[in-house]
């Protein structure tokens, strides 16, 4: 065997198993999803379905459902932006605080602050749901102890949505903190020393050194975070108990999950999945291109 043939054989054995599995469990279902989205498949037509064209896609945008697509879309954007804002601001802020050279016990603080990320999302969601309980939940007890009125967290549409956001902010900031901390540690110290000699103030150093230097690491993390948050079915579904009160607490993914598995609208659900996917694809493409974040990837 010639060396180049042996090398090709080696690569083939390295890569093929994963690619075959991905073809079977990702590509094939994806293609099947496209077909379902163009069909009239539902509980009554699970085997004798037929292709009906783009009817399901039209339905997503025009069907006067309660709540309708546009309302949920706006809620999803609010959900994503608010969550990401707090994740990044809190994460970077805590990383900056923790990274000061005078702070002792960094390891302990870091370990404790990473805790919300380590706890399984299911348990996070159900526990916070318990904490938001009107009568027995500890949030309202803390509020009343502080002399504030108790809030009907899980019964009002806005309150339930806020409750889900609080839960998700809690579990999401450690990821950004860990990423920011890693980035901060790679900034050479002499940069700050030079700036100090020039008499730079702290916000000057933040703007001129810290932010530009952690940006290349933060931008992909933010992109990934946006995608994960936009698609985070767990928290909204479990905190609001499947969209309660009366389907007012949905983001797009929880709405499509409900359409597919509670109302058995397979064609419609598949079409809506495709639309969510294209929204995210467009977002990532534009965002990554603007910030030129993945230049060194291939």
């Amino acid at each position, binding site marked *: 065997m010639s060396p180049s043939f042996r*090398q*090709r054989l080696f*690569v083939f054995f*390295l890569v093929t*198993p*994963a*690619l075959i*599995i*991905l073809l079977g469990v*990702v590509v094939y*279902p*994806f293609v*099947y*999803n496209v077909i379902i989205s163009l069909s009239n498949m539902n509980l009554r037509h*699970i*085997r004798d379905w037929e292709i009906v064209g783009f009817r399901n896609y039209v339905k997503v945008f025009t069907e006067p459902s309660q709540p309708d697509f546009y309302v949920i879309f706006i809620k999803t954007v609010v959900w994503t932006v608010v969550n990401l804002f707090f994740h990044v601001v809190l994460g970077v802020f*805590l990383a900056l*605080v923790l990274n000061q050279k*005078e*702070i002792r016990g960094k390891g302990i603080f*870091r*370990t*404790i*602050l990473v*805790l919300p990320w*380590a*706890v*399984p999302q*299911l*348990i996070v969601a*159900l*526990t916070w*749901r318990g*904490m938001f309980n009107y*009568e*027995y939940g*500890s949030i309202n007890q803390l509020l009343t102890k502080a002399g504030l009125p108790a809030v009907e967290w899980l019964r009002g549409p806005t309150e339930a949505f806020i409750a889900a956001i609080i839960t998700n902010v809690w579990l999401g900031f450690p990821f950004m903190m*860990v*990423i920011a901390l*890693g*980035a901060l*540690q790679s900034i050479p110290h002499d940069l700050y020393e030079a700036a100090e000699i020039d008499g730079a103030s702290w916000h000057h150093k933040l703007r001129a050194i810290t932010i530009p230097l952690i940006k290349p*690491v933060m931008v*992909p993390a933010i992109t*990934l975070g946006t995608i994960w948050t936009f698609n985070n*079915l*767990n928290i909204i579904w479990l905190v609001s108990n499947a969209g309660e009160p009366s389907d007012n607490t949905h983001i797009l*993914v929880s709405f*499509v*999950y409900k359409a*597919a598995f509670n109302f058995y609208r397979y064609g419609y*659900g*598949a079409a*809506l*999945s495709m639309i*969510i*996917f294209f929204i995210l694809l467009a977002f990532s493409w534009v965002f990554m291109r603007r910030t030129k974040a993945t230049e*060194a*990837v*291939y």
Partner: protein
Amino acid sequence: MSKSMLKKYLRVTASYAVLILFCIISIYPVSQVLTVSLRPADRLLSTSLEIIPENATLSNYTNLFVKTDFLLWMWNSLLITSCVTLTGVLLAATAGYGFSRYKFIGKKAAMQSMLVTQMFPATMLLLPMYIMLVNLGLINSYLGIMVMYSATALPFCVWQMKGFYDTIPSSLEEAGRIDGCSQFQTFYKIVLPLAAPALVITALFSFMSSWTEYVVAAQILQDTALWTLPIGLKSFESNMSTEWGLYGAASMLVTVPVVVLFLALSRYLVSGLTLGSVKG
């Protein structure tokens, strides 16, 4: 004390205050679960805020083992999770290396499509897979759920491993080749040991994502004999009366191993993540 000393003193004090405040916020919900799990049955709906409740008892834990199928759920979860993690790590360790070191036709397209799968909403694969499993009569099977979990975890694992291999200088392998190692030997004797942190992180994420996954399992595993821990846990929580004691005890037992593992490995998190998924 000079003015700059005072400023520094204030800054450090404020920093500690902020850190301690956020530590309390991080710990509080977890301490709630612990409290609930230790409450005696007649005080489950207590409104007290103390962490170790009055008359603390372990009866919720014993009830969990005696009165519910907790051990069965744990067995199911362990079986499914270990299969998914092993497959994920094995395939990602090899494929990631291939993607990192060699050029071949379709490489760029394959890498990009793996990144694109991260944008799939959960239903994108769940719905077609569910219908396929129904048609094949594979609903309510370990195989069905394992396939689902691998589909979601594998692309991320491959990316992460590829990103890590990229940071290992290839001069090491060239040295190995000169010393007479075959390609496979350089891979598993030189590169793989160096990639241990990334392997550990990849395994951890794979493990965590399937150990506590609920929404997919709820559709695919409807037979109570196949229930995993998350479905069992959720069953304690119902609208009419939540069995908070059992829920708390089960949550502790599900969470503690994961948290310990996660925190023990957290020093690898920075390198694993910034080099792997994020930079790549």
